[in-house]
């Protein structure tokens, strides 16, 4: 690795000031599971690492009146062991378990995963179906937005060079919502998703209420299948209806051909996995 400066700021404000001062030659360091690999093999023009992984403002998991807050520097390992997450957002925990392996989950942070912004990020669909919001902090203060608006393209987020992802919020009404996550990779361990899907919904007098479907690795960013959601809303669930919704979801995606799988294979995965997560979410909703 080439020579770098390494700075450990004392606060989020100090980190923002450092990023602002150094511009694009500075890069915030979180868990490092992506960044350290990049620094070894394609460092770009990074000269200064600003280690934000220990900043207290970016840690912690708390339930408040607003909902559940997860600090951006919380690791996947911490999410998997957190009793509030296990109880209130079990499918985010399930998605976390499919990321990398134990060692990378102990280093890698949920915020780092979102900022790296690969289309296959496993936490993204599970958070999107829970209407997650993110807080971004920069020289002009904080701004909050739906998580969908945070993703711009492959490896590109809405963050300005001086900004940092501070925390992730799941609104109170979405906690404990019937939800399901499914991922298909080429292996069970340490595999990138060919497709990952999450769903969340409720049943109201036997009809589907507020359905959410989110998919990863099927477009330049993780996406919501809004047409399939609109198709399901207010209808009585049947196997045929679920399959039709899954087929609509397929039309909303743009999967790629690459060395891992063909676009056609991915489309078949999207249909089956979407069916699966909707069916499982309905089962959970029906049990209540």
């Amino acid at each position, binding site marked *: 690795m080439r*020579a*770098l400066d390494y700075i450990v700021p004392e606060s989020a404000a100090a980190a923002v000031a450092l990023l602002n001062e150094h511009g694009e030659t500075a890069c915030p360091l979180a868990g490092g599971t992506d960044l*350290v690999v990049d620094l070894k093999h394609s460092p770009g023009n990074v000269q200064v*690492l600003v*280690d934000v992984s220990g900043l207290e403002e970016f840690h912690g998991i708390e339930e408040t009146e607003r909902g559940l807050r997860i600090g951006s520097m919380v690791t996947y390992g911490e999410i998997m062991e957190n009793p509030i997450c296990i109880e209130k957002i079990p499918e985010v925990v399930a998605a976390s378990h499919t990321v990398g392996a134990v060692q*990378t989950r102990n*280093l890698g942070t949920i915020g780092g995963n979102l900022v790296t912004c690969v289309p296959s990020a496993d936490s993204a669909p599970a958070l999107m179906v829970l209407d997650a919001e993110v807080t971004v902090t920069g020289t002009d203060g904080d701004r909050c937005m739906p998580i969908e608006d945070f993703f711009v393209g492959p490896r590109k987020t809405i963050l300005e060079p001086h900004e940092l992802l501070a925390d992730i919020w799941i609104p109170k009404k979405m906690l404990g919502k019937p939800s399901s996550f499914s991922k298909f990779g080429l292996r069970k361990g*340490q595999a990138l998703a060919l497709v990952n899907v999450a769903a969340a919904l409720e049943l109201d007098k036997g009809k589907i209420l507020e359905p959410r479907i989110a998919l990863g690795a099927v477009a330049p960013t993780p996406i919501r299948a809004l047409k399939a959601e609109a198709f399901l809303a207010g209808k009585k669930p049947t196997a045929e209806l679920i399959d039709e919704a899954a087929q609509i979801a397929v039309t909303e995606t743009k999967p790629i051909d690459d060395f891992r799988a063909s676009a056609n294979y991915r489309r078949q995965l999207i249909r089956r996995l979407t069916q699966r997560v909707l069916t499982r979410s309905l089962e959970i909703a029906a049990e209540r």
Partner: protein
Amino acid sequence: MLVEINVNGEPKSADVPPETTLLKMLREDLGLTGAKLGCDVGDCGTCTVIVDGVSVNSCLMMAARANGSNVTTIEGLANANELHPLQEKFEEHGALQCGFCGPGMLISAKSLLDRNPEPTVFEVRDALAGNLCRCTGYTKIIEAVMDAGREMRSGQSGA
């Protein structure tokens, strides 16, 4: 920059360039060559060490980030008189062939048993998913970990 860590119970420090990984510091500055440099991108797990109670890929962790931490490496498993039960069971089961994956396998297995003294086979497989072996396959390794867990629970080893 000066990095101070507690390794296997002993305070250690080294003045390293800021871009140094924890693995490089352990191997080249502290002379602890048990953790191996394998893929260097976090896939193979042979660099695995325990930092403040959790296992990590030391090739992906900057040394500066480990400053002030407690680190356990493979050198910290055995004492002067006896092997750790995991090491004994790996030997007994022939769970290592070339041995290159061994330090990482043993550290991942120790990290699992520290948290979960009675794992299922599935949990052992899950815990070792980040450690690649290219010689023996995984069956004997998994059997050795299960067996070590049983022995440690029975308290026969005194570990």
